[in-house]
């Protein structure tokens, strides 16, 4: 269940309350997010849509602890991340968040195996255990036979699948996907989406995804639109745009 009215249960996996984010640009204050509320239960697959500059990526960065809000709070699995120090936030990210970026952001001098292993180097797992985890993650994304390839030796779709393997290898609390299919052709995009859906359905992963593509957004359980700094559900947005109310 996903709610945007601030009336969700405090026991939800993610609780966002009164989230504000302002930027200063050329002396002008830009209010990107204004009193945003959001409650996401574990196992949900939520898509965020909205025009460019509406604050989708900003919201994702805030949820992932990469940025700090101007006001409001974000609580994930009982931890209020908006009150954490920079150092604690870094540790929290390593344990709880899996990132999937539009441009993949793999380290080009590392093999697929080494890229996927990166989050595990921060854990106390032995070398053997790390190998097992990495092989499992790469098998899950169907790239076990490409584990010793470098990113430049992989197609865009394969690179994105390696990124997904890197995101899930440490079994994080939730995945944040920023335009995961934005740089892919339709076929590769479908493969990546099928993979994300499988993670949600079979492995009960919670996924929050930003996308411009309505076809991709349709695959999510819930699609939310960012309008004037706040979230509205897809149906409500359509009604709002036609001048009525839901």
């Amino acid at each position, binding site marked *: 269940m996903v709610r945007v009215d601030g009336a969700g249960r405090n026991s939800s996996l993610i609780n966002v309350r009164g989230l504000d984010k302002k930027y200063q640009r050329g002396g002008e204050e830009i209010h990107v997010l204004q009193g945003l509320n959001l409650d996401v239960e574990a196992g949900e697959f939520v898509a965020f849509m909205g025009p460019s500059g509406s604050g989708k990526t900003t919201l994702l960065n805030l949820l992932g602890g990469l940025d700090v809000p101007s006001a409001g709070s974000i609580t994930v699995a009982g931890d209020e991340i908006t009150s954490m120090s920079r150092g604690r936030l870094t540790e929290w990210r390593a344990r709880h968040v899996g990132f999937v*970026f539009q441009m993949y952001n793999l380290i080009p001098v590392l093999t697929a195996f080494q890229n996927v292993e990166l989050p595990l180097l921060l854990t106390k797992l032995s070398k053997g255990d790390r190998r097992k985890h990495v092989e499992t993650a790469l098998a899950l994304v169907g790239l076990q036979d490409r584990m010793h390839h470098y990113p430049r030796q992989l197609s865009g779709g394969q690179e994105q699948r390696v990124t997904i393997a890197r995101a899930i290898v440490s079994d994080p609390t939730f995945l944040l996907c920023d335009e995961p299919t934005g740089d892919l052709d339709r076929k590769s995009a479908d493969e990546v989406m099928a993979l994300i859906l499988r993670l949600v359905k079979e492995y009960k992963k919670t996924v929050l995804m930003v996308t411009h593509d309505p076809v991709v957004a349709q695959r999510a359980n819930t699609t939310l639109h960012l309008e004037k700094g706040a979230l509205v559900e897809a149906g409500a947005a359509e009604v709002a745009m036609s001048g009525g109310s839901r």
Partner: protein
Amino acid sequence: MKYRGLLFANLFRKKTRLVLTLGSFAVALFLFSLLALIKHAFSANVDVAGVDRLVVINRTAIIQPLPISYRDRILRIPGVKRVTYDNWFGGVYQDPKNAFSQFAIDAENQRQVFHELVVPDDQWQAFLKDRQGAIVGATTAKRFGWKIGQRIPIQGTIFPGTWEFNIDGIYTGQRSGDDQTQFWFHWDYLYERAKNVLQGNVGWYTVLIDNPDDAVRIVKTIDDEFANSPYETHTDTEKAFATGFAKQLGNIGFLVIAIGTIVFFTLLLVTGNTMAISVRERIGELAVLKALGYSDRFVMLLVLAEAMLVAAVGGGLGLLTAAGFAMLLAATPMHNFIPFSTLSASAALTGLGLTLLFGAASGFLPALGGLRLRVIDALRRV
């Protein structure tokens, strides 16, 4: 150790650049080591000069002689322990390029005055009994492959003709900087054949004194003793004498060192800039590491470790090359004039320390700049 893969993968990202950067550090350290060798070579005689020895030369110039009768007069001065005298011979062995230092010595006192240059007793006794005998430094003996008992001809330049000598002994220095290139033979043998040239004169005197604290007084006493005579003296401590001699070469040394130092630091700055560029190129990757949960401190240490590893390996290569080069120089005739020694541990450590410092500085500054970037800003650049 589990981050080794990440460290080395980054290092080998651009192999050509890595090789060039290593090469720059190696050249810089080679240059630094060479400067250290030159500096040491110019000051070597000063460093080992005895504090308890005085040198007495003709006031006009060292090439002007002093009467042999001065020996006993100097010996009578209170505080003087022993006096010995020498003459520069200036001969060559087989070929003009085989020049080296030859001295006609006062065999009776040489060993006691220059006590740090050691000759085994049996060899010294054989030398004393042999009018044409010679004692040669270990370096020169090795250079020409001379053995004890060998008879060798030396072509005189100041004292013309062929002079034959028997190698009766080989001396070695007790300290690392001691000159082991000299060739000694009996002054009596020189005088016997060149009486008309020497006319009762010697080249200079070396005076061993009881107490170095008395040096100033004895110096003044000696020079006063021979004031207003046809052969006035100029006396100084051996250290001051060696310093004055080194200063004549020192100007060249200063120029070489000054120019070399500028080149050394320029090379390091260029290398540092190259390393800074290589870090800036992957700010986005560093941001990804941070997004994945790597701390600011880890990312900084990773960049520093890369920079310092390159500096250490490059610098190490430079030091090794310089050490090899020093050994080669020591085996050349140049060694007789500029006594190149092996690279000292302190010079090597200083050079390596400087290189690591530059490596750290070149890695630290861009890393710091990168770390100040927020992850989201850095990711936006990708």
